[in-house]
């Protein structure tokens, strides 16, 4: 154990602090919830790339900074942004999921065409994976593509497509090999959201906003070259990006920032003559959450060190999505409790705190506990891959007749 980063890294940290001091005022102030980055955010992103504070290891040819991978420096960058309370580089599905996938598995042409504009926030992507019938069991997806005169012709429906309304492009899983086993028949396509035959319908959520959409495809024609990886390998291509998504959802700096916001809230919020933080019960919960945030930060450092040494993340990594999403939700829950009756104000009400952010977070973070692999699926993964516990026995394929009986029984029960 040695927590000293060493002189080279200390110098790097100082350099970055100076950068933030000189340029921090140029960072965008608006809400990060917007799907399409503002002009201000795009300028900030470009400045960060130029100085290597984002897209650091992406080759210059593709619009990145082109530095050798150095996880400690990446770590320092994240820490310093968080410490200064200044937004770092853009983090959207295109940057966090598509770019790493293209760099790993895309053709040279695809990398040249898409990585740079995506990094610069000029091209916004959405993720077309889930379908009404394929959520946890993503591999059962049915949206299909047949090949016809050099084009994929896509038909089907996606759901939960975040930012589909604003997106220019979609990375999408479709079934291309109909007789292959379910994981082996999927392909990963990228195409423009302006392609004829795509219809996007916003989907309102419990927060009262439309954070997602349903996306319908009817005879959508996409050139065959717009596939990433080979036909039938889409599942493996997508799994590469799911790992990135889960990493994005478990960012310890984001947790730390939320936690600090909660501390500020509890110092400001008054109950009678005192402050919320003077209430020992609320303060105890605050302390417990702080320790958990600290644990997740240390856990992150450990994962980092493992990957520096080329070792797998192991259990420390498997639990990140489950624990981080729950923790984020609990931080918001305490904020609401600390606000008492004021905690349920929403939608621009008089006396609402922080424009309803805590309530929005409380609900949205419940969504994130579900999205990107539900808590129950995460627990299955932890048990089966992390703890090597026996797998669920595969159900025998249900025959048509047996299924008919089962349906009948179910209907009977339903009407009883």
């Amino acid at each position, binding site marked *: 154990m040695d927590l000293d980063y060493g002189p080279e890294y200390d110098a790097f940290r100082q350099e970055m602090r100076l950068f933030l001091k000189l340029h921090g005022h140029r960072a965008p102030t608006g809400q990060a919830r917007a799907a399409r980055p503002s002009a201000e955010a795009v300028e900030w992103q470009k400045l960060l790339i130029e100085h290597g504070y984002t897209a650091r290891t992406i080759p210059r040819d593709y619009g990145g900074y082109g530095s050798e991978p150095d996880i400690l420096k990446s770590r320092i960058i994240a820490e310093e942004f968080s410490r200064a309370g200044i937004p770092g580089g853009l983090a959207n599905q295109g940057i966090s999921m598509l770019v790493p996938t293209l760099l790993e598995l895309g053709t040279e042409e695809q990398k040249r065409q898409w990585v740079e504009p995506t990094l610069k926030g000029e091209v916004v992507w959405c993720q077309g994976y889930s379908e009404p019938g*394929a959520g946890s069991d993503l591999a*059962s997806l049915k949206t299909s593509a047949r090949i016809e005169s050099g084009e994929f012709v896509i038909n089907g429906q996606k759901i939960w497509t975040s930012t589909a309304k604003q997106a220019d492009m979609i990375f999408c899983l479709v079934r291309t090999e109909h007789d292959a086993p379910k994981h082996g028949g999927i392909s990963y396509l990228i195409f423009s959201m302006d392609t004829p035959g795509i219809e996007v319908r916003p989907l309102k959520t*419990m927060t009262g906003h439309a954070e997602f959409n349903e996306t319908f495809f009817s005879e959508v024609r996409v050139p065959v070259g717009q596939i990433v990886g080979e036909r039938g390998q889409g599942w493996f291509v997508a799994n590469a990006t799911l790992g990135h998504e889960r990493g994005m959802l478990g960012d310890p700096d984001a947790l730390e920032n939320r936690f600090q916001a909660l501390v500020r809230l509890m110092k400001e919020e008054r109950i009678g003559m005192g402050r919320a933080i003077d209430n020992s019960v609320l303060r105890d919960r605050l302390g417990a959450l702080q320790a958990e945030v600290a644990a997740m930060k240390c856990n992150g450092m450990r994962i980092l060190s493992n990957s520096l040494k080329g070792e797998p993340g192991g259990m420390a990594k498997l639990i990140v999505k489950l624990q981080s999403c729950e923790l984020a939700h609990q931080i918001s829950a305490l904020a609401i409790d600390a606000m*008492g009756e*004021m905690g349920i104000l929403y939608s621009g009400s008089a006396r609402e705190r922080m424009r309803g952010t805590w309530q929005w977070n409380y*609900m949205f973070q419940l969504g994130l506990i579900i999205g990107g692999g539900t808590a129950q699926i995460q627990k299955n993964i932890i048990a089966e891959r992390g703890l090597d516990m026996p797998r669920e026995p595969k159900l025998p394929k249900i025959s048509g007749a047996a299924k008919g009986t089962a349906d009948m029984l179910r209907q009977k029960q339903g009407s009883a």
Partner: protein
Amino acid sequence: MDFGLSQEQQMLRDAVARCLADTCPLEHVRECSERDNPVSDKVLDALQGLGIPGMMIPEEHGGLGMTLLDAALVAEQLAYAVAPVSFLASHVLAPLALSEAGSEDQKVRWLPKIASGEAHISVAISETVEARDGAGVTCRGGKLDGTALFALDFAGADAFLVADTTGRLHLVPANASGLEKIPLTTIDRTRSVGELRFAQVTAEPLADDSGFTAGRLRDAGRILLAADSLGAGQAMIEKAVDYSGQREQFGRLIGSFQAVKHMCAEMAAHHEPCRSLIWYAAYAYEAMPEDVSLAACQAKSHTGDVHRFVARTSTEVHGGMGFTDLVGLHYWFKRIGFDRQVLGGPESARAEAAVLQGWIKAA
């Protein structure tokens, strides 16, 4: 001994449930919740047919003279249907306050009109639990000054019953000069709350100046908020069970996964004792008044915690669908969120329980 509902109580519950099933489908709730004043005249009229507005009003004043347990059963059904109607303050707390502590004149003036649905009184007693944003109303020389947050059943009220900082209740007509009314918007768009600002407002005090009546209202309010959560939780559990019996993933019903079964079973296991506790607390309101404050704190805090769990767990069972507006699950989720925070969250109610029992001195 018989720990259970009487036949009349079961009939009341079933009648209200039927009435709401007929008049208050989710589509109607949606329409109402998009308006500034969510109260549904259609549902209120139907409830009027059952005498609900007058249920807590003594018979001699035109009501049904029922008990708080009866009211708790109604509250549960209202939440089960996420009914956008006024009830807690207008039809329970205000009638209780006037019957228990009003003058003869006040009773005669208000109670028959409340029972018939012609008048509705909103109640603002939050500051007797805890003061936020420096709120509080003082009374000097018969004039009220200050702010009362979270007046319940706010929209369309003809008068307000407001607690001052000594806990004394005052009746203020809605059109009193110097009274400013500011609606507040919460996550729960099926109920209406607001803020009252007083500048030298002439008010009519209730006789009791000991704070006792405000305490009774706090107890009754907490019990009914707990009952409301119970009904909303019941709906959420049923919906989770139904959904897991229909949704298939990995070639099987998700309800056949133990993970999902256990989520549902755990909800039921936590939920069911709440029902018993709430019945006890509501019964105690009239039968064991010396015990009711503690029981109310327990019902409020325990139900608040249990149903926060139920709300999120039922949502999780529904997967992404639970998070959307499509199945409308969030109406119940938010109702539970509202019930938890209003008139003191779990921490605050437990702190009060500790004081009541002499474990600690009042802060």
